[in-house]
């Protein structure tokens, strides 16, 4: 048992270096088989790299789950000016802490993934957009980039292949919205992080107005392994629609919280009761948010026979998102939990679109009133209606994200709300 806790049912592919201090250094990482993927990719050629990633079925780990190889193939084949690769390391979704660990423990894995992806899409420059609050992580990744340059793994003529790829670590300034791909591009360009209207999509007009691809840290970390071992190898884990392994960030009322790398399709109940060791004595499951704070709630009932894959969670009425599993036991005051989540979105809304700017604050104020026992039953209808008005009407999906927990909690935990409204009593205390 090393890194805070590891479980025998884990399949550690990308988290292999967690807890190994030497994995952080270039030599240590090479000793673990590092940079073999880059070497192989440079020998394979671009088209083949994209084909391998396509064959692996790797899907974007940032939340949307878009097939990575397909995304890469959207980039123009005929180059007419620079291409850019953006590595989205602005991990700020409440409940998510996987990218931070990947960068802290295996910075070279991230860099190797970036270089392979950049090579595949013919990008000459990689921006690693790292969340501003990750001070240590920023230093670690910046030092690793330096090491890579010194070893000739980045910069001009990588490994004697004639390929030039520069890597820049860009430190964010603390805005959640900059994790949205187009807001991130605005931020890289030095402007306010405001999401852009799509279309045009980044593959046509991205950062600095040039074709760009943006991938999550975890996605890029899986790439070197896929290149080394092949697409079929990756498909040995997971389901047909969701191949491979995935880091699950578990937080909340379970005995063992943390990052666990599991094959896709792993049963949710096994994660909760086996890997995470279940609940404290006398407590039982009340709700799970399976994919970070912006996805709908799941009740204990929903958790039964739930397969942790993109399609499995959708079947149960929620989304896998970035697989940040927030677990709540029967002590939880759901109304307070939802209010705090909405407060977060109200604070982080960029303020461009009206439904989001006004809606998030309005939701949070109604919820606060209900929480204080001053709500009415009409408020619940208003909340749901406002939530619907905020869904699908804005430039980015922050507005939808704020509305989803409100709508789903009223649907699934209406009694908790009614207890506060009718009797002024909260269900749960935590």
């Amino acid at each position, binding site marked *: 048992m090393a890194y805070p806790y590891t479980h025998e049912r884990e399949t550690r592919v990308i988290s292999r270096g967690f807890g190994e201090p030497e994995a952080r250094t270039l030599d240590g990482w090479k000793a673990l088989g590092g940079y073999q993927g880059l070497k192989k990719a440079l020998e394979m050629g671009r088209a083949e790299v994209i084909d391998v990633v396509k064959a692996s079925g790797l899907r974007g780990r940032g939340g949307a789950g878009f097939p990575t190889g397909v995304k890469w193939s959207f980039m123009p084949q005929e180059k007419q000016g620079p291409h850019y690769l953006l590595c989205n390391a602005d991990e700020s979704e409440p409940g998510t802490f996987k990218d931070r660990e990947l960068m802290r423990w295996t910075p070279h894995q991230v860099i190797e993934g970036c270089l392979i992806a950049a090579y595949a899409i013919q990008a000459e420059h990689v921006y690693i957009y790292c969340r501003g609050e990750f001070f240590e992580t920023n230093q670690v990744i910046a030092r690793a980039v330096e090491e890579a340059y010194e070893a000739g793994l980045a910069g001009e003529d990588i490994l004697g292949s004639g390929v030039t790829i520069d890597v820049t670590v860009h430190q964010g300034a603390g805005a959640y919205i900059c994790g949205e791909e187009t807001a991130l591009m605005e931020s890289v360009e030095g402007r306010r992080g405001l999401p852009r*209207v799509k279309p045009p999509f980044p593959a046509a007009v991205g950062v600095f107005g040039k074709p760009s691809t943006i991938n999550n840290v975890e996605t890029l970390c899986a790439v070197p392994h896929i290149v080394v071992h092949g697409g079929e190898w990756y498909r040995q884990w997971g389901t047909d629609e969701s191949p491979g392994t995935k880091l699950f960030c578990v937080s909340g009322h379970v005995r063992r919280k943390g990052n666990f790398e599991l094959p896709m399709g792993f049963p949710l109940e096994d994660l909760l009761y086996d890997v995470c060791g279940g609940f404290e004595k006398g407590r039982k499951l009340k709700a799970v948010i399976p994919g970070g704070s912006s996805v709908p709630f799941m009740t204990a009932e929903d958790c039964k026979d739930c397969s942790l894959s993109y399609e499995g969670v959708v079947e149960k009425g929620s989304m896998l998102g970035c697989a940040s599993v927030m677990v709540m036991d029967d002590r939880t005051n759901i109304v307070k939990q939802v209010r705090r989540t909405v407060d977060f979105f109200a604070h982080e809304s960029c303020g461009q679109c*009206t439904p989001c700017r006004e809606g998030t604050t*309005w939701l949070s104020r109604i919820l606060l*009133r209900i929480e204080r026992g001053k709500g009415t039953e009409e408020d619940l209808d208003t909340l749901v*209606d406002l939530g619907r008005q905020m869904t699908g*009407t804005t430039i980015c999906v922050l507005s939808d994200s704020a509305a989803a927990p409100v709508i789903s909690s009223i649907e699934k935990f209406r009694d908790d709300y009614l207890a506060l409204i009718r009797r002024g009593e909260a269900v749960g205390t935590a």
Partner: protein
Amino acid sequence: MGDNGHDSDTVTLTIDGLEVTVPKGTTILQAAEALGNRIPHYCYHPGLSAPAQCRLCLVEVEGAPKLAPSCVTDAQDGQVVHTESESAKGMRQGVLEFYLANHPLDCPICDQSGECKLQDYVFEEGRKHGRSREPKRVFGRDDFGGDVLFYGDRCVMCTRCVRFMDEMAQDPRLTVVERGNRSIIDTFFEEGVEGSPYSGNIVDICPVGALVSKDFLHKARAWDLDHTPSICPNCSQGCNIDLHTRDNLVQRLKPRPNLDVNEYWMCDYGRHRYEWMNRGDRIEVPLVRRDDGHEATDWPGVLEPLLESLREGKGPVRAVASPFVSNEALAALASLVEALGGGEIVFRSARADTEIPLPGFPKLTRRHDLVPNRRGAEILGMTRVGSDDGSSGLDELADHRGTLLVLGDELADLGPDFGARASLYLYLGSHPTPAATAADFVLPITTHAEEEGTFTNYEGRVQRFWPALQGPGAARPAWLPLSLLAARMEGTRSPSRVDEAFLRAGELAPEFRGLAYESIGTRGALVNEPAVLPEG
């Protein structure tokens, strides 16, 4: 392509059941506008970039997964768009409710009330009753410098003002600070937009009462104002404007769109110089000189003796005109001088050292010439005299011993001796002036705000203006008595309408030939290139 009647440069789509063909690259919002369907919007402005953030112009496009922002979505061939469908209308109602969640609803004391897009849209499509029971966010008021006052609570965050300063004025003085519901328009420095020469436009483009004019603050209600199309008289650019009037006073000037001249804008210099149109000291009746000074009379009482004097012939004719009068009046003056045997006509005009272009549309520039009709006067053969402040240059005229005609120039730098030696001194003006003391006849004329007519701007564009104010007493447009006198001298028919009076300009100068009021319309028309003059 060609066989179905339209080529590949256009697309045909259906909006609310009506088919429309527009050039490729036209947005759905513009295509709908071509059908007369104005889709509600705040952040879109035809003169600025579109950030698609107000979310009010969302429309249903068949086959699209979500509602599309019509201001940035290009019209596609075969597209079927619904702006009045259940989902589009429901969404608009929802967005409008969000706008009102923190709006102070202070319409009774808001200057924008009556011309406010929030009022209009909510009245048309909003919910009957708001559902918000929460306390409202309060920002308060801020002085943005210059003529601009900011009421943060009324703001709908469309950012038109920020984009105008960035893109058109290219003088970024405003920005959005903070995030989410706390975001607000703010100035970078304490002076705000002070001294930025086009900043008044941000008040015009603000769709609500967030940015208001200090000059107009609480002066009039929008619904009490009459709007009359006119031309800004404060420089030779000839910006198309509307005169907003109430109680026979001009309350403010607003730009009127004309893509060939001023797009949607006007400068602060022109905007804030309208008070002179409201001057109360006016010449209201014709005056005839008697031994003990001027005696008031009526038009027949002045025209008959005046005509008699003119017929007698009082020596060589000299005239001075003002470039603030219309082409029609200048042409009538030129006709009269011609009928009297010809003579030199001069004019004086103020001239600024610098021009002030609008960087985002440099064709719009506050020109050197601070008068509206210098070009018209020059085309009609008049000569500029005097200095750049619009004074002096009339020493010879002051002592002229023949017939002396003055049209419109107030002669503010001259005293009661002016024209005392003239055998006949006719003064046509709007305002009493000491320099008219010696005049044998004084005729009251209207200002351009009180009459119909045309100016010729710096590039030779003839543009029409319309009467916004009632002229005082017996004052008449100057072209009317002048053409009457000229016609009577020559025994011809005098024009009785202003469009006929304009045709007289075409008879005098080839540049005006062929132009007529119908063809000038509301957009203006360029004069002909000066015809090649015949030899000799």
